[in-house]
């Protein structure tokens, strides 16, 4: 089962870290099935904007709609998170070991996640704890998990620098895989090859969306 792509609408979104404003009244509409690259300097608010979609960073003002719906309450956020696949930027292994297979098992469609792990060259690592993997291997595993979520019905993929730790061949492979993905994709990336495969590039600077 693959879900239908969902539009993502940012309406005057403001995010804060204490008194400093990380995202300043961002307006952006990403159509269903559109692939958008978000670029910009470090600290310009790209990751915060993506995390806000999942409720991992609270909105100080504005709203974010996925599939035309705002997320409210526990059930609302659970539905939002089920509809949005995520490749995080900082893959900090926790205090506890987690096996690659357990991580892939948390995807909506675990079988597709495991197959994707094979396509991405990490199928042999299923019994390995995540903290024993290299940065590139870890990134491939999280990508495989996200592909399992898309196959299981998530209509949106948020990927935060998904190729930052990959070698050149890996960057090209992942860019091609994401380009062919039947989902709405918002990817934060400094990788030009990745940006070129997207329909549109949005640039953030000092918390504001400059070009959209």
């Amino acid at each position: 089962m693959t879900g239908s792509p969902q539009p993502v609408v940012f309406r005057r979104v403001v995010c804060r870290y204490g008194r400093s404003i990380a995202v300043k009244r961002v307006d952006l509409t990403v159509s269903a099935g559109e692939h958008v690259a978000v670029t910009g300097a470090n600290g310009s608010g790209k990751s915060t904007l993506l995390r806000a979609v999942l409720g991992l960073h609270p909105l100080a003002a504005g709203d974010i709609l996925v599939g035309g719906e705002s997320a409210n309450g526990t059930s609302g956020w659970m539905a939002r998170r089920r509809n949005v696949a995520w490749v995080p930027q900082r893959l900090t292994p926790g205090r506890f070991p987690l096996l690659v297979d357990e991580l892939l098992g948390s995807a909506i469609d675990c079988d597709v996640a495991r197959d994707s792990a094979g396509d991405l060259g990490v199928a042999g690592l299923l019994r390995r704890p995540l903290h024993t993997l290299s940065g590139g291997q870890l990134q491939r595993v999280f990508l495989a998990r996200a592909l399992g979520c898309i196959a299981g019905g998530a209509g949106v993929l948020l990927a935060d620098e998904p190729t930052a730790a990959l070698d050149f061949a890996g960057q090209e492979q992942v860019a091609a895989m994401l380009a062919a993905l039947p989902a709405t994709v918002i990817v934060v990336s400094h990788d030009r090859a990745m940006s070129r495969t997207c329909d549109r590039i949005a640039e953030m600077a000092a918390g504001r969306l400059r070009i959209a």
Partner: protein
Amino acid sequence: MQQFLDLLTLPPVQRSGVALLLAAIALPIVGVFIVGLDIVAVRFAVMHVALLGIAVGFLTGLDPMLCGLAACAIAGAGVAPLAQRPSGLPGAMGLLMTFAIAGALLVLSVSGVNATSAFELLWGSILATRPVDLVVLAVLAAVIHLLFWRYRRPLALLMFDRELALCSGVPARLLMLVLLIVVAVAIGASIRLTGALLVDAVTILPALAARNLGHSLRSMVLLAVSFGFAGNVCGFALALALDQPPGPVLVLVAGAFTLVTYLLPEGAFNASTAARQDDDRDLRGAVPADSLRQ
């Protein structure tokens, strides 16, 4: 030897043995949760919270031990919202302990009860185990195992990374709430049942040993229970054979087991068999450097 066998026929010794077996089955799992949440100071915090509950019991005329356990449950639920902050829980334990001891002393002062007698009610001994204590331990063991085996996968995600758990559809807030209540009540009850010193031997020490050797939450729990079981059986048998108090002997034996796991070279046991096979395969498939030069 005959003296040792004679001791085993005494009902208090038999009850102690059963209590230690029940404790070994369940409490190391609580230890794994404690180590995973980085709240090793929870024992001190819960002890003072239970004391506050007992003080309230004395003041109101309700059963002091029930009030103590209720206070533990409320405290566990009370600190749960702080878990949403990345470094919230370890600091919260210190805050909880300070508040609880101050509150307990104040309530004891108001109720006119001596603090020492309240502490005596809280501190038990494994040799003084009553049949009702065995029932409480058995219920605790059942609840802890049910929680772990029913929610093993969500718990593994939650303890690895809270945000990943949230994005995987895990009800992280609710699960953390339940987890902290179970940890607080289990520790509070265990202090009463086994004594404050033994709580560490049956919770934290097996979990620390398991963390050094395990490569997944499941393997850590199985290892922790094995260490708890081995430590309790060996420690109790040694204490009886040497005619020494079981508490310190059990702690020393469990501590020795844990120390051995720290002395093992890092990764000696940690890498799973499958992982080693992967690495061996990679090495076999590697192109020799000499062939590259030709």
